């Protein structure tokens, strides 16, 4: 019994009959009594790895995976745990709106306006009402605008459905932004936190619908402007911010959300270009 075995090159030359007569005879003598090397010959000829023999190619791939594969972000892992397939979770997590700086900015703004509202100043409540529904819609716009998502052009010409990508990111953003808006809404005295949700969903849906005509950032600016004018005019008429969250207006936000979503789904199937940048 010996620990010596035919080396890989010699074995391949023997299989390929490209070795000398003396080398060939030597390998054959060894193969007569060495089960392990016979298994290696079998593996080399059939392409199946021999039992007990280390597959160096596979091992190298595993090493490279350990070194090269980027570590999934916390958010990506959360999405996977929520049941999203790994590749979809990766696509959603890439959106700019999930970057730390952006989230910190959103949290800062909401903290500021919630504090202003909590202090009892009517202008603070007005401010929270104006800002809260716009946070998710601006986040959605930021998640797929070419100015913010610099890789959008190569993304756009892949077979992955753009509509699905936008919807996945929107749902993920709503999943993060709406609870945040509701949470900060708790600090606003006298109003249930869920009353902020429908205006927010309505604004997001309107941005999506408008983005089938123009860039998502422009859509977000337009929706924000309209929302601020509506809030301002309603408050100016009634003298109190409460009217904006009244039940009849909540139905209006729901209608806006449903209508805009339908428009987006119908038109979004045919959209294939974002507005080109002027050179």
């Amino acid at each position, binding site marked *: 019994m010996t620990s010596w075995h035919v080396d890989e090159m010699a074995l391949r030359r023997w299989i390929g009959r490209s070795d000398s007569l003396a080398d060939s005879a030597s390998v054959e003598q060894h193969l007569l009594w060495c089960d392990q090397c016979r298994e290696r010959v079998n593996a080399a000829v059939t392409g199946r790895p021999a039992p007990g023999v280390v597959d160096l190619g596979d091992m190298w791939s595993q090493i490279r995976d350990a070194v*090269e594969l980027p570590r999934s972000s916390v958010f990506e892992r959360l999405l996977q745990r929520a049941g999203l397939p790994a590749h979809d979770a990766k696509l959603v997590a890439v959106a700019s709106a999930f970057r730390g700086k952006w989230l910190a900015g959103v949290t800062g703004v909401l903290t500021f306006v919630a504090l202003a509202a909590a202090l009892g100043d009517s202008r603070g409540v007005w401010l929270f009402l104006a800002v809260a529904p716009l946070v998710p819609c601006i986040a959605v716009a930021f998640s797929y605008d070419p100015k913010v998502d610099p890789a959008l052009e*190569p993304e756009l*010409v892949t077979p992955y459905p753009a509509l699905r990508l936008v919807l996945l990111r929107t749902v993920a953003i709503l999943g993060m932004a709406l609870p945040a808006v509701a949470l900060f809404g708790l600090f606003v005295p006298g109003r249930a936190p869920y009353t902020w949700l429908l205006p927010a969903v309505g604004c997001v849906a309107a941005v999506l619908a408008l983005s089938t005509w123009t860039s998502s950032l422009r859509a977000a600016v337009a929706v924000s402007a309209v929302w601020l004018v509506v809030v301002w005019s309603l408050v100016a008429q009634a003298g109190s911010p409460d009217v904006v969250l009244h039940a009849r207006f909540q139905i209006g936000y729901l209608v806006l959300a449903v209508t805009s979503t339908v428009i987006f789904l119908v038109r979004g199937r045919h959209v294939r270009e974002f507005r080109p940048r*002027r050179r």
Partner: protein
Amino acid sequence: MTPSISLRGVGRRFGAAWALADVNLDLAPGVTGLLGPNGAGKTTLLRLLATALSPTRGQVCVLGLDPAVPAERTGIRRRLGYLPQEIGFPRGFSAFAFVDYIAVLKEWTQPAVRHAEVRRVLDLVDLGGISTKRIRAMSGGQRRRLALAQALLGSPPVLILDEPTAGVDPEQRAALRNVLAELARTSIVVLSTHQTEDVAALCERVIVLDCGRVRYNGQVTELVGRAAGRVWLADAPDVAASASWRTGTGRYRNVAEHARAGVEHVEPSLEDAYLLLRGGTRPDSGDVREVLS
């Protein structure tokens, strides 16, 4: 059937300006170069071929599929590699992470197979050794090669490249030419560039665009041949020349519309022929080849 791309009467308008007008082309496997001055419509044409834009008028057909039909457009995108002129990268990504991300969008859902393909294309552009490097720490040339790597995923039958060698050093350019030449055995490769030497080294065919119109569409050798007898060296710039510049030897290279006798003629290059084509006619006149012949 040979895979092909055809454009019939294609035009694209941005506002009131036509970036591309009445373009008729047929492209087959091989490398086709796209030359033209800034604003000639090269990028618009490439974006049309890459299904990133739709034509204002006319018909585009890629591998027998119509990009105006959503299902067929997806079919084209499955067979397409596209390198845009300007490409940004998501912040904080490594080279591997970026190509892996695009591979996911290109429907490579099996991680092991996808990672192997990502490594293959990174090796092709000689970035395999620095695949974990952050993109923001990469040089301009490395970023350009990374952008090219994502286009090469899956060895697509149609490869649309907008200035693939911009900012890439000469050694890497030569290596990239080999990669593209190999791919062009079976694929349709269309590349736009300002580097006439890239076209001369790589392309069998060249299309010259000017003001959104096709000024020349044919063999590179034929275009170069049209400049024979019209390029010469002299000790001073020649007033008869339509273009003249000082070379590294201190002598002047002159290019003129009409053949000159009694001068020291030299072998024309594609750049000479391109300059002749551009200078040999007004931008709004007819077929330049008639002027040159």
